């Protein structure tokens, strides 16, 4: 038997207590969904399909702005030294995903604003009539709209990738130690974004289209999730132990039931049947996808903090 006694009394640094609480998974989830939304709306703008998919092109940018801001607030709430937050913008650290993230966020806002300018929400244009003029100007140049679409896709992709890289760069937590994590988070962002649009789009065509897209994202997400786990399971003991936290450890119920079952497989089945017109579309499937995406972030962040290089020794 291997018996380890650690005199460290500090609960804040104990390996079994969390460093990050709800704020970070919420932030990662919102960041992810915003990324997905930007990619989707950017794509449609780029393709000039503003008429087919009005919601994606005109409503979603504004929703993204709100979600992103909510995510930023969650992130801010997590900071221990809030008054010093401006320090992130006094430097750029090339090796730090956090630093990248801070600057990417700065990039996202202007892109989102441009996006919003394409069609100003009513309440805004009522208050600021000049915005309407700007909007008309932009819309008169289709190239500008396409470029905004491109910018939107690029910055969305950066944002989505960053939320995964942020964790996977923290090598001390074996669960996060995977080069597939960013793909997983990006796909989850896309699937939740698509589900969201599917849910709120008024046009049946758009709703149907995004349900189809969502099925693709969900299927890919499932594959990447499997790859992610296989990657861990074929690595060192600590990584195997980390994967086991999800597979049969303390996070397994949440993982299997909410992330895989209710978050991916069941909605996928429902939606496959719905897009092939076997059953009508229901709001339940997209809601499941969105909740599943949120719980995915919670499970990954929490289980990741528990996964540890020492676990392999401790569990023996």
């Amino acid at each position, binding site marked *: *038997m291997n*018996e380890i006694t650690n*005199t460290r*009394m500090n609960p804040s640094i104990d390996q079994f207590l969390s460093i990050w609480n709800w704020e970070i998974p919420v932030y990662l989830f919102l960041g992810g969904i915003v990324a997905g939304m930007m990619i989707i709306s950017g794509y449609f703008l780029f393709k000039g399909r503003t008429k087919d998919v009005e919601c994606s092109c005109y409503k979603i940018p504004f929703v993204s702005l709100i979600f992103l801001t909510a995510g930023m607030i969650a992130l801010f709430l997590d900071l221990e030294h809030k008054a010093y937050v401006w320090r992130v913008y006094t430097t750029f650290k090339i090796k730090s995903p956090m630093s990248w993230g801070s600057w990417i966020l700065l990039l996202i806002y202007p892109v989102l604003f441009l996006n919003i300018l394409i069609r100003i929400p009513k309440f805004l244009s009522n208050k600021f009539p000049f915005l309407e003029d700007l909007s008309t100007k932009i819309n008169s140049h289709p190239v500008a709209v396409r470029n905004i679409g491109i910018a939107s896709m690029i910055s969305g992709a950066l944002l989505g990738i960053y939320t995964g890289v942020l964790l996977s760069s923290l090598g001390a937590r074996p669960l996060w130690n995977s080069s597939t994590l960013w793909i997983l988070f990006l796909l989850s962002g896309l699937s939740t974004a698509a589900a969201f649009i599917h849910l709120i789009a008024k046009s049946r065509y758009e709703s149907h289209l995004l349900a189809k897209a969502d099925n693709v994202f969900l299927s890919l997400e499932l594959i990447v999730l499997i790859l992610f786990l296989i990657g861990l399971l074929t690595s060192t003991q600590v990584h195997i132990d980390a994967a086991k936290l999800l597979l049969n450890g303390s996070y397994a119920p949440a993982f299997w039931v909410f992330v895989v079952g209710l978050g991916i497989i069941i909605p996928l089945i429902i939606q496959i049947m719905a897009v092939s017109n076997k059953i009508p579309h229901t709001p339940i499937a997209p809601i499941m996808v969105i909740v599943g995406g949120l719980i995915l972030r919670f499970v990954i962040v929490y289980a990741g903090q528990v996964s540890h290089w020492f676990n392999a020794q401790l569990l023996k």
Partner: protein
Amino acid sequence: MDNISRRKFLKISAATISGAATLGAVGKLTESVEQFSGKIFRNGVQKIPTFCDICFWKCGVIAYIRDGKLWKLEGNPEDPLSRGRLCPRGTGGVGAHYDPDRLKSPLIRKNDRGKEEWVAVTWDEALEYIARKMQAIKSEYGAESVAMFSHGIGGNFLKHTLKAFGTHNFAAPSFAQCRGPRDVGFKLTFGEDISSPERTDIKNAKCLVFLGYHLGENMHNTQVQEFSEAIQNGASIIVVDPRFSIAASKAKYYLPIKPGTDIALLLAWMNVIVNEKLYDRDYVEKYGFGFEKFKNEISNYTPEWAYPETGIEPEIIRRTAYEMAKHKPATLVHPGRHVTWYGDDTQRSRAIALLNALLGSWGRKGGFYTPVSMDLPEYPYPPYPKPNKPKVDNPNSKYPFAIETITNGIRDATISGSPYPIKGWFVYATNLIHALPNEAETIKAIQNLDLLVVIDVIPSEIAGWADVVLPESIYLERYDDLNVEWFREPFISLRQPVVESPHDQKPNWWIAKKLAEKIGLNEYYPWENIVDYLKYRLTAGGYDFEELRTKGIIKGTPQPIYFDQGVPAEFPTPSGKIEFYSLQLAQAGFDAVPKYKKPEEAPPGYFRLLYGRAPVHSFSRTQTNRILMDMYQENEVWINHVIAERLGLKSGDYVKLKNQDGVVSNRIKIKSTNRIRPDCVYIVHGFGHNSKMLRYAYNKGASDSQLLTRYVIDPLMGGTGMNVNFVTIEVEV
């Protein structure tokens, strides 16, 4: 049993606290600190030497004062005891000064004992009250009916006052609950005892044998430092302990002995060493007395005989005996310190002494050196009145070889009133509830008293029973008597204040002097301030007070400490030699050569309760020290992990321990471990405080003392063997 033993905690009526702020005669008190004002306490960092009092090792300290506040404590590099490094408790002494649970002003009990209600009073009122009670006891029963329990150098002045008052009943738990049997066993053998600091030459030993002595957890500083040196030098280490101690982890041979059977092992070792003629023959021939008789007596104790008793294979007993013999005389079979285990402790210590004698280690490098000291005259006080009655603790020399006063002897006399009644107790710096076994007896004795004065720094359990509680300044805030140490080299060290007391606490010398004045003993305090006293003694010895104050230490010229260096090989025993066979023991009706007696077996389902030290705590005195408690907040019960599994317990589970007499402990965490035998459990002493005023320590862990309802008295010297209790494990519901 349970309801008397549940201590009533102090309850101060808040309205009276303000009264304590108006102090009459106390203005002069802080003089000792004030006289340095400006000189020492300026801004920036000041270093002031003093010596530690978290245990009795008395390590030299340098206190760092930053911006007038105590910052940190380091070892005084000039000091031979600390050698510039303190143990964790010494380093954490800072927490004793800042302890928010300290006693703040004198307290007088308001109601009957048992319904503890307190009034905060002025020093004048408290001392007046005590003086009145003392005079009453003196006129009714005689001055001898006042006894004092104290531990440590701080008690010197109060002892002086009480000697002047006319008593001679002074006892410390360091004899009958600690090292007494060892000192008696060695004195019976070599004519001299081991004393403290131990005269063991650990650093030069080539082979070190520890029986239970758990250095590394027991943090007696110089011993630990020398232990490390011995490890560095590649000494062979043999550790005998039912528990895989820290020391065991450093050992070449770890002998997981069955508790209580050490004498069998010692006899077997001696048997091998004598039979195979591995002993130091010149040494034994030259200095030994009664060797042939001894040899006969031990001839049957073969390793094969010892095996079923101790559980140690004959092969290992032989091999370890050879190892010891190989390195003789630099083989140190350490005599231990806390040896009051089974009631046969003096004889076990004598067996250790005899094994050392066979190896020729007494007086030799790597064995036992001869300590030296500086000559410093005592203060010329008037002679004390001669007590009319003999000491109360050991009537008719019931324990013929006791060389110090027996605490439990005083307790017995207080309960029985025989040989004469004891009506007053002064308790200075000893928490008798935790230090003596069977707390019910202690409480019974207390109920017979007319006066119980407790001088403490925190509201300890014993303070909870007092009529008057006097809050003392901690060691960093006061002068004490000079420490004229017996050690490897001669030196004198000084304890001096490095910070001021935060409230109305006073140093013991002031308390003792003021009390003497209250009872009209002014002539015994011809000095005004302790500094005058210290200066007087130092000047009389030819030393300079200022030098001592700035250095903390004055050293003398090194002197020889081994026989080989010219120390005369003198053995002040009746025969003048090392007594392999002790006629004085035989004459008193005891075994002249130690014999083995089987220990009592645990009842089925019970485990023998063993206890010891945590490196960051001293007894029951450090559990309110926030810095030290931060390191180890509650004790755990060590239990063999196979047994724990069988009982369905895992580390961290809370259980209660219930002893053979039905006493149930506080809740305590399981430590399921591969580091202990299956027949015993182990806890760290000093936890499980039930004084609620010890806010931080209250209810943390379990108290071993509470579970020690049984003890076996050592018939030679009156010590209390305490490893004789058994517990079962009750799962918390």
